[in-house]
């Protein structure tokens, strides 16, 4: 058993919100540098050059990478041997978000119909998972609206072929991708249930960008290559580099089901995590 105080959780969340606002997630910069080499379009090259320059300024001056500092999507893995003391964990997370977003944009409304801004960017979207061990792992994925709103899910027939899934993904990129600030990162969830596929698609974005999942690496490669043939290019203005990476997570599912969810993420991919 090990005690972890909610005040530690609050502080960690606050620090992660701050740091993620001006830091590209691990792996993105390398892919951007590669993209600059591969891009043939003059406009595309200029855009990627700006994106790289932006990341350097943001990091140096601790300025938000993007003005849309997002809604905070928080992943918490709680070791089953850890005891949380000092308060309620969700409250601590939201207090951390409120503190961490003080000088960032407040982009959350309390009620989706009335749309009154909560003015402190809370509440966060919180995914909790119980895992082995004594630790608590907290990951923060600030999610901008532009990319998030382009996401899609489809319930396929269980007899659908791999090609059908690829076609759905590529067509969705063609129709929606230009508004999601390409070059994109695609989080894809295959299997589970309607809700779980969407969760997997988001979770896929927390993997180190460009790192391979050995079960899905071939499919990821194939989709990436198809997506980069669409010609959409940086900011949708034409070019070779439409996506930097495709990350897939899969899960067992019902014999009649084959859900496929695509969570769009932009090049301004921000994700930071810490283990307490």
């Amino acid at each position, binding site marked *: 058993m090990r005690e972890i105080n909610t005040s530690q959780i609050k502080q960690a969340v606050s620090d992660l919100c701050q740091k993620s606002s001006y830091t590209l997630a691990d792996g993105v910069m390398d892919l951007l540098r590669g993209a600059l080499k591969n891009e043939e379009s003059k406009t595309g090259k200029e855009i990627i050059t700006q994106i790289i*320059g932006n990341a350097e300024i943001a990091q140096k001056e601790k300025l938000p990478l993007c003005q849309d500092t997002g809604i905070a999507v928080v992943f918490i893995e709680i070791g089953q041997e850890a005891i949380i003391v000092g308060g309620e964990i969700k409250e601590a997370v939201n207090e951390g978000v409120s503190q961490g977003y003080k000088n960032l944009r407040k982009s959350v409304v309390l009620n989706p119909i009335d749309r009154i801004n909560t003015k402190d960017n809370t509440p966060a979207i919180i995914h909790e998972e119980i895992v082995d061990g004594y630790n608590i792992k907290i990951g923060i994925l600030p999610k901008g609206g532009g990319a998030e709103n382009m996401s899609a899910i489809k319930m396929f027939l269980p007899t659908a072929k791999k090609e059908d899934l690829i076609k759905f993904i590529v067509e969705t990129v063609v129709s929606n991708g230009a508004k999601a600030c390409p070059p994109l990162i695609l989080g894809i969830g295959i299997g589970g249930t309607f809700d779980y596929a969407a969760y997997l698609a988001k979770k896929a974005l927390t993997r180190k960008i460009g790192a391979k999942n050995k079960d899905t690496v071939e499919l990821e490669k194939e989709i990436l290559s198809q997506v980069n043939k669409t010609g959409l*290019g*940086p900011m949708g203005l034409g070019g070779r580099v439409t996506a930097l990476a495709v990350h897939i997570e899969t899960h067992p599912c019902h014999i009649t089901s084959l859900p496929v969810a695509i969570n769009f993420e932009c090049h301004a991919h921000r994700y930071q995590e810490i283990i307490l």
Partner: protein
Amino acid sequence: MKEISTPLDDKTIKSLKAGDQVLISGIVYVARDAAHQKGIPFDVKGQIIFYAGPTPGDPIGSIGPTTASRMDPFILPLLKKGLKATIGKGPRSEGVKKAHKKYKAVYFTATGGAAALLSKTVVRSEVIAYPELGAEAILKLEVVKFPAIVAYDSHGGDLFQKGRKKYSKLVTIRHSRGSGNPFNSLDAASSLPAGQAGAA
């Protein structure tokens, strides 16, 4: 890169072609969803509206373009009154594209997510209307060499379409039986559907 300054005259507008990279200097107004809904209270003649919602800062925090198509329902009356350009990201509706030709105006895109870099071009910022809207208030900015790309020009040119056509290697994707999905060939020039929210 072409350097242009505001207010924009007809000669400048005419000279701009889809695909041109420009550096904008002068006054640029910032307005987005809520401000458009309330009404644009300044004289738009010859002006540029930048669709954006910055983070807090002095003179401004990070600032970059938001999805322009969300402002499509509001742009026609403004173009009629002489608005000459907007800055945003992403493609807009066919109707709005055509209106740029009719009213001799230009739609620029700036790099979404390059908001720290773009903020360096802002030398002055002032809230001129709707301060209660916070990040959605109307701002008057003075910018120096703000980098933008002509997406729609005043002659009907469209860089989204032109660019994609040039670089698309995709003709069709093979379809397998049993999926229940109707086969559609994925044409390189297929149009972009409207109705998506977009944001920033």
